């Protein structure tokens, strides 16, 4: 094994050697630089291999022939090896990326780059405080030098600002070191750690100065204006090093100091770290410059890792796993993003829309933001899970809450940015893409996936990258070159095959969900045959969502559940974003969903109480006072997906603006994930009380209000798909209500809604989508009279609305009948009043839907329309049949579940004698109803045919009209603002209070952030003042505590 000191020697030697080269020999100089960096990588990688694979012991490297404390010693261990590899690899890739710049500037710039990488490696390797100082200074000098690589003239002032602060930092550091030396008699880090009890007290000013100086290099809030300026103005390749490598090295330095100071100083690290994390993410919100935004994010992530460093007392042997996962995910992603930013000409965030011409780069961007947001299957996800588990296990709830809040903010602006990329106008300048600039980005992507695999392996849970559904979904990434219909066939076949292989494993309840997901999904996918071309990005996203759904219903432990939840969230986000005008809606969807996911994470973490494995079934064993809180967190989390009122504002836009075949997927299938979660939750936890309030009772109210307000909002909607989306809010409200009833029939009713809603909402969305495709609008009042042109779509809608409204003889009635029977056994009567009110309101929007689109006056521009495309009609017809079948024999699906539910509620099941279904209160015979209605209807129809056989079809305007002859369909079609009187009477109930609340909240955050970031006024002196004030304030707070 090559001694680690050669990492430093190689860089130094090469830098010296460059000085001897003639200025003209730039290519040689560049080759030497690369060679040195490759060598450094090679050494680090060699060590990493021996530590990780061969489990070698850490090695001390002595210098000057003495052992410490008489000479400086370096140490190479697992952490050091990984970090030096990270540093030298980012150095190498950045050097490659900088090829043009370095060749233009000559050997000196290459030498500075080498010194920078060397200094950072030195910081990582050294075990001597003063040596640490020296490497610090080297790093600052090299940083100041490399800032000048940028073409941006403003980098000059940024570099100077940095120098000012670096000077102040070095003063504190030196004083701290010398007094620590005075106190312990040694400069050696391990020596100090052993020698001094004084430094460990938490009151030692010497250690404080040393520590705060190192922390200052981590750009703590608010003493970080200088760093932001560097991030904004420096060359992106340097920013990549500055963010990924410097951050890692300085964090490790902070870790070393914490080793000296011991546990008494942990809270300080945590405090500074978490404040930085939250504040930087908050201040990033109004940011419009891409590199500065990344700077804020970088600072935030460093803060997070610093906070984790301060938690090592509870992290135990998972410390490296957590801190490493977060750090590596951040470093790789941030380096990758900075490298990407070098390919973009414009600096505003929407300029990144240029990436659209390069799908590969979009994929890279997705990988990077997924890593930053801690989404599966990347290391940050596993780290976040472990961190949450251990924090909650030790009762550090406030910290956990702050971390999750900050992470949500970060995900918010990252995904907003992604929305810009896909949806904003592409700028004139294309992406400049040369191989040496592309290679680092690709390398970062590859590293991200590799680490994802590694962390999955180390996680102690199932490695997500080895689960069949996820692999299947990811394999579509490789199949993107195929035409859409082949991919569609593969997707359908894959899902059906998975169902066939696994269907024996589900209990009756899960089987219902499995059928909806794995059989129902393919039915909707039939509509996707309509799309031609390659349909880039659709299949990976859709299959990711279905993979998440499939994993969700199959998993038994909380980790798997949460991972699946995040997968389906991300997949559906990409799906929803595909809609033409989906940008803002997809954003609010992902923010709400991630917010909900974080609540679920917190809930599981709280419930687990630190246990590594936690089965969902164990939720039932929880006791007061923890149980209700867990219940609440999980329930709210699940209700972000069911779009319960208050958390619903994302849904109308997300479902309404989605593509024709996506709307039924996200509405008919995805919403059920939330219900499934609630099922699981209530099955294991049952009723919970918080401060004497029955939480299921609260759920009843939420369900009832969702039903009422969802329905009310739907009737005032002019857009057909949005109307259906609002109606989903109402329908989900019914289902939540049913679940919250906590009795046998309530659950059966919820399940009935699960099935029904899947069928009719998918059908209606397809129908509305097909019509919108033909007419080119979704505004219902622009349509009218389409019944003769699109009879099949009309039939689907007709059957759909009869089913939704619950009118017999279709299956919606079954849901209503079970509902009435269910509430008879419940004591909660007031929420039922609300639900009673909600019921008939459904008629309003349903009638409006069918009337304004298919009935009334046909518009001139629509006279030549054809029926919706075959592939969109086909699944609708399948749904019509399904609906009729389910209406006549609901027992097909419900009977087994009814029996299954007996284990939870032995009382109150249904009797299935013959074709009659009866409860303790009433009875219902779907077959008899169907026959009776058919016979009555048929006879009367026949009678009318007989007496009215000569009826003549008349033209459109042949109507009795007072005094004039109508000739314009626009003025004759009564459609717009159809329920005007209703708005007059009850419009006050649909004032967008909730929307205003959330908008107000986000505006508040933005305004607060926009005001606060003016702190960074750009003046180097102010930054120096910030730093000194930071030190003073932290000291007083710290000693005051």
């Amino acid at each position, binding site marked *: 094994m090559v001694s680690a000191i050669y990492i430093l020697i190689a860089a130094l030697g090469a830098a010296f050697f460059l000085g001897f080269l003639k200025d003209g020999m730039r290519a040689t100089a560049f080759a030497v630089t690369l060679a040195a960096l490759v060598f450094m990588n090679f050494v680090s990688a060699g060590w990493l291999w021996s530590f990780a694979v061969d489990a070698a012991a850490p090695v001390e490297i002595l210098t000057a022939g003495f052992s410490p404390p008489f000479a400086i010693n370096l140490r190479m261990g697992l952490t050091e090896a990984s970090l030096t590899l990270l540093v030298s690899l980012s150095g190498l890739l950045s050097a490659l990326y900088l090829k043009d710049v370095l060749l233009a500037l000559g050997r000196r710039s290459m030498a500075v780059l080498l010194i920078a990488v060397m200094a950072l490696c030195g910081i990582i390797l050294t075990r001597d405080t003063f040596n640490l100082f020296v490497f610090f200074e080297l790093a600052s000098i090299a940083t100041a030098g490399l800032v000048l690589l940028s073409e941006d003239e403003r980098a000059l*002032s940024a570099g100077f600002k940095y120098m000012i602060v670096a000077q102040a930092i070095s003063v504190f550091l030196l004083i701290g070191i010398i007094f620590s030396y005075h106190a312990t008699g040694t400069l050696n880090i391990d020596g100090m750690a052993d020698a001094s009890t004084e430094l460990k007290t938490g009151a030692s000013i010497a250690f404080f100065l040393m520590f705060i100086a190192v922390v200052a290099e981590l750009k703590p809030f608010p003493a970080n204006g200088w760093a932001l300026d560097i991030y904004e103005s420096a060359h992106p390749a340097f920013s990549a090093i500055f963010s990924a490598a410097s951050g890692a090295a300085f964090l490790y330095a902070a870790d070393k100091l914490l080793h000296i100071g011991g546990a008494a100083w942990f809270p300080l690290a945590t405090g500074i770290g978490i404040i930085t994390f939250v504040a930087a993410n908050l201040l990033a919100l109004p940011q419009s410059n891409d590199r500065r935004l990344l700077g804020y994010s970088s600072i935030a992530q460093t803060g997070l890792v610093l906070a984790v460093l301060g938690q090592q007392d509870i992290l135990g042997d998972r410390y490296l796993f957590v801190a490493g996962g977060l750090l590596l995910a951040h470093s790789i992603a941030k380096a990758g993003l900075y490298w990407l930013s070098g390919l973009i000409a414009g600096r505003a965030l929407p300029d990144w829309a240029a990436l659209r011409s390069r799908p590969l780069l979009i994929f890279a961007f997705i990988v990077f933001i997924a890593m930053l947001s801690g989404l599966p299957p990347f290391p940050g996800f596993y780290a976040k899970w472990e961190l949450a588990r251990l924090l909650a296990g030790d009762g550090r709830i406030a910290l956990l809450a702050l971390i999750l809040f900050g992470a949500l903010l970060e995900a918010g602006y990252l995904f907003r940015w992604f929305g810009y990329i896909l949806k904003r106008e592409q700028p004139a300048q294309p992406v400049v893409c040369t191989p040496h600039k592309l290679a680092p980005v690709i390398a970062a992507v590859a590293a991200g996936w590799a680490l994802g695999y590694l962390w999955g392996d180390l996680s102690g849970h199932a490695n997500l990258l080895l689960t069949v559904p996820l692999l299947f979904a990811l394999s579509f990434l490789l199949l993107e070159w195929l035409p859409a219909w082949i991919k569609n066939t593969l997707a359908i076949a894959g899902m059906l095959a998975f169902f066939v292989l696994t269907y024996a494993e589900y209990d009756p309840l899960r089987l219902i969900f499995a059928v909806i997901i794995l059989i129902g999904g393919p039915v909707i996918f039939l509509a996707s045959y309509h799309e031609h071309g390659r349909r880039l990005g659709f299949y990976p996203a859709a299959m990711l969502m279905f993979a998440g759904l499939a994993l969700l219903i199959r998993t038994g432990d909380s980790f798997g559940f949460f991972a699946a939840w995040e997968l389906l969230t991300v997949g559906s986000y990409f799906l929803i974003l595909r809609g033409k005008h989906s940008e803002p809606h997809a954003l609010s969807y992902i923010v709400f969903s991630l917010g909900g996911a974080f609540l679920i994470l917190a809930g599981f973490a709280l419930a687990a109480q630190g246990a590594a494995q936690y089965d969902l079934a164990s939720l039932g064993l929880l006791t007061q006072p923890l149980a209700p809180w867990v219940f609440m967190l999980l329930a709210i989390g699940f209700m972000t997906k069911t779009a319960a009122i208050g958390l619903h504002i994302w849904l109308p836009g997300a479902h309404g603006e989605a593509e024709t075949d996506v709307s039924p997927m996200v509405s008919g299938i995805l919403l059920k994930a939330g219900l499934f979660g609630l099922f699981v939750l209530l099955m294991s936890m049952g009723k919970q009380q918080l401060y004497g309030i029955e939480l299921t009772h609260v759920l009843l109210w939420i369900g009832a209000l969702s039903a009422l307000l969802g329905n009310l909002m739907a009737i005032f909607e002019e857009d057909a798909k949005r109307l259906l989306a609002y109606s989903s809010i109402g329908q989900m409200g019914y289902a939540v209500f049913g679940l919250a009833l906590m009795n046998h029939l309530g659950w059966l009713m919820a399940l009935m809604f699960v099935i029904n809603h899947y069928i009719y909402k998918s059908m209606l969305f397809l129908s509305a989508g097909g019509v919108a495709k033909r007419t080119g609008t979704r505004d219902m009042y622009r349509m009218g009279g389409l019944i003769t042109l699109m009879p099949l779509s009309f039939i689907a809608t007709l059957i759909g609305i009869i089913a939704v409204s619950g009118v017999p003889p279709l299956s919606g009635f079954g849901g209503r009948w079970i509902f009435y029977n269910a509430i008879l056994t419940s004591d909660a009567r007031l929420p039922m009043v609300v639900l009673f009110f909600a019921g008939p309101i459904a008629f309003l929007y349903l009638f409006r839907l069918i009337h304004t689109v298919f009935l009334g006056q046909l518009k001139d521009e629509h006279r030549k329309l054809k029926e919706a495309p075959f592939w969109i009609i086909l699944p609708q017809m399948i749904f019509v049949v399904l609906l009729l079948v389910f209406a006549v024999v609901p027992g097909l699906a419900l009977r087994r579940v009814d029996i299954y539910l007996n284990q939870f509620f032995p009382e109150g099941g249904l009797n299935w004698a013959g074709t009659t279904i009866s409860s303790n209160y009433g009875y219902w015979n779907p077959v008899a109803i169907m026959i009776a209605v058919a016979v009555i209807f048929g006879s009367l129809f026949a009678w009318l045919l007989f007496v009215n056989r000569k009826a003549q079809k008349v033209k459109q305007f042949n109507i009795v009209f007072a005094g004039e002859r109508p000739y314009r369909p626009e003025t004759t079609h009564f459609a717009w603002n159809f329920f005007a009187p209703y708005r007059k009477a009850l419009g006050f109930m649909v004032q967008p209070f909730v929307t205003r609340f959330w908008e107000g909240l986000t505006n508040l955050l933005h305004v607060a952030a926009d005001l606060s*970031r003016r702190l960074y006024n750009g003046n180097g002196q102010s930054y120096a003042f910030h730093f000194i004030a930071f030190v003073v304030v932290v000291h007083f707070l710290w000693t005051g505590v």
Partner: protein
Amino acid sequence: MIYIAMATGFLLILIGFYGALTNRNLLRMIVAFSIADTGVNLVIISVGYLPGRTAPILDTTVTAAAAATRIIDPVPQALVLTAIVIGVGITALMLAYALKLYEKKRTLDIAKFTELKW
């Protein structure tokens, strides 16, 4: 005596910081930091000083055997040497920056270099 040196050192540091924070001229700021650096060096020296001992140089008067009892702590001295070297390097770099900045905007006022902010 030691305390006077140490107090002077701290005073210099404070003067340096005060100067750096109140002078908007780049060159004056650099000078102020040099003063602070000097103060730091003074503090380091004063920490390592032991009354009644000689400089940590081994020669005929101070043998290696007797060094432990006769010389002051050599480590801070070594540190100061390094610190001075580094300080010089940083000062030089800052001066170079100041020159470049002046060339760009024909001013040395730090408050004029605020294009990067928020």
